[in-house]
């Protein structure tokens, strides 16, 4: 079960990040998780939102260079050692993580990790078979 991540190409310019967030906010899109990969003069902003279809449309309409990437969201307990045991499952399954980032949901004491694997389908199968809770689009929307 994969979810859609939004990736946005941003050049290193003052105020550019807040422009993205403003545009999404004005369209009532809720950002669930986000991270920035940066190099000297540009960055790629990666985010998980409640309505990716609307988000990508809004961004393109406003002249942003954006695309979608398949990622996998996994629920882990918000307690010591939980992430470590998840990573063991990933290792054992021979999966390659290209990057990952996470966020915590305070209300329910759990954390969500976003993973980009080199092989999304294989990763989804292995994680599900190992009893890890893989989160779908509708769960993200309803957080």
């Amino acid at each position, binding site marked *: 079960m994969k979810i859609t991540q939004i*990736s946005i*190409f*941003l*050049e290193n*310019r003052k105020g550019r990040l807040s422009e993205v967030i403003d545009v999404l906010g004005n369209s009532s899109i809720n950002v669930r998780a986000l991270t920035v990969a940066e190099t000297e003069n*540009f960055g790629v902003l990666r985010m998980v939102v409640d309505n990716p279809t609307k988000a990508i449309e809004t961004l393109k309409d406003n002249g942003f*260079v954006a695309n979608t990437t398949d990622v996998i969201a996994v629920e882990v307990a918000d307690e010591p050692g939980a992430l470590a045991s998840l990573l063991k499952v990933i290792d054992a399954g021979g999966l390659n993580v290209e990057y990952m980032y996470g966020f915590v949901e305070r209300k329910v004491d759990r954390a969500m990790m976003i993973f980009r694997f080199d092989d999304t389908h294989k990763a989804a199968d292995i994680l599900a078979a190992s009893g890890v809770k893989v989160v779908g689009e509708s769960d993200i929307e309803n957080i």
Partner: protein
Amino acid sequence: MEINYWNKDVETASREDIQAIQLSRLREVVDFALKTDHYKRLLPKAGINSSSDIQTLDDLKKIPFTMKDDLRQNYPTGLLALEFKDVVRMHSSSGTTGIPTVIYLSKDDLDSWTNLVARSIVATGGSSDDIFQNMMSYGLFTGGLGLHYGAERVGMMVIPIGGGNTGKQIQMMKDFQTTSLHITPSYLLHIHSKLAQSGVSLEELNLKRAFIGAEPHSEETRQKLEELFGIKCFNSYGLSEMNGPGVAFECEYRDGMHIWEDGFIPEIIDPETGEVLPDGELGELVLTNLTRKAMPILRYRTRDLAYLYDGVCRCGRQHRRLSRIKGRTDDMMIINGVNVFPSQIEEVIMRIPEVGTNYQIYLTKKGAIDQLTVKVELYSKIFSGEASQLDQIKKRIKEELRASIFIHPQVQLHEPGYLPVFEGKAIRVVDQRDQM
């Protein structure tokens, strides 16, 4: 392919006939030149007191070169051969870099110029069936008015919109089903990037051809434009000192620009020594205007680098062809001792589909070392979402540039629309080395 001519006799004349026309017109124009303050001073010193001192075309070599600076020093009337009452038009440079240069045309001069432009348009396949949208600026600049009157003479419906206002340009192209454009390559690229936003699709337009000129550009740029729009792009060459557009133009075969040799004598010289070079060798283009009487200009050093080549074109015209302008003698950059033309960098950028069509070259200094930074815009549709893809694009541009110009450049990727857009001549090079 059926070939259309505007003036078939002259266009398909033999080399001997063309040279006979050139000699008789050169003699005539020398007599007019001797009426101007400038040439009255200069020509007798070179042994030319009247047209009888010009016996063969080879005698042209006796005439000293005319430089841009001569035009400035003779501002406003030092090169005028007629009285103002016989002049019907003047054009002028903006003068932003000093004293402006001014050009005068009599009624006959204007007629000769307009005929050369009409001939150029017909050579591209243009006819009275065409709708012509002229996106060059009107006014003191010769580009707009030159093509305007030529297109009218051919019988095209002319839309004299001038430069800028992209939204309106696109709307008119659609509403009037424009077939032909006169435009700078950089502005045509810009229009393409704005089409999607304007809600007008290429299918709703009726474009067939574009006359592109006024700034140097590479063959890769032309091909990119032709692919993007599905049209033919014809290179156009002209300069206000030689009237304006209509000096040289590509025919339907688009294999070099025919330089209209009944209107001009072209020479290619070594810019250092002034020696005249044979056909096929790259050097500075020197032009003599053979028809303008109000303001004769002989052996004008254009500072444009190109070469001439002979041979009958498939279109049947024997007027020699002028290569693409490779650069200007004054826009060559010297980077850490290496000579580089902006056109070499443009060629590389246009070969890389992942980047857009706008670019800028920055020159800075780090200590004693020159630094070259090339700024390009990412082509939005190719972005996969992966940062690694962007690193690879940067790396590829760096490597291809290094292979082509032997300089290790910095490459910066920008979002589309970030780099400045130019509706007239594009400013591609920003040299900040003397400020450091």
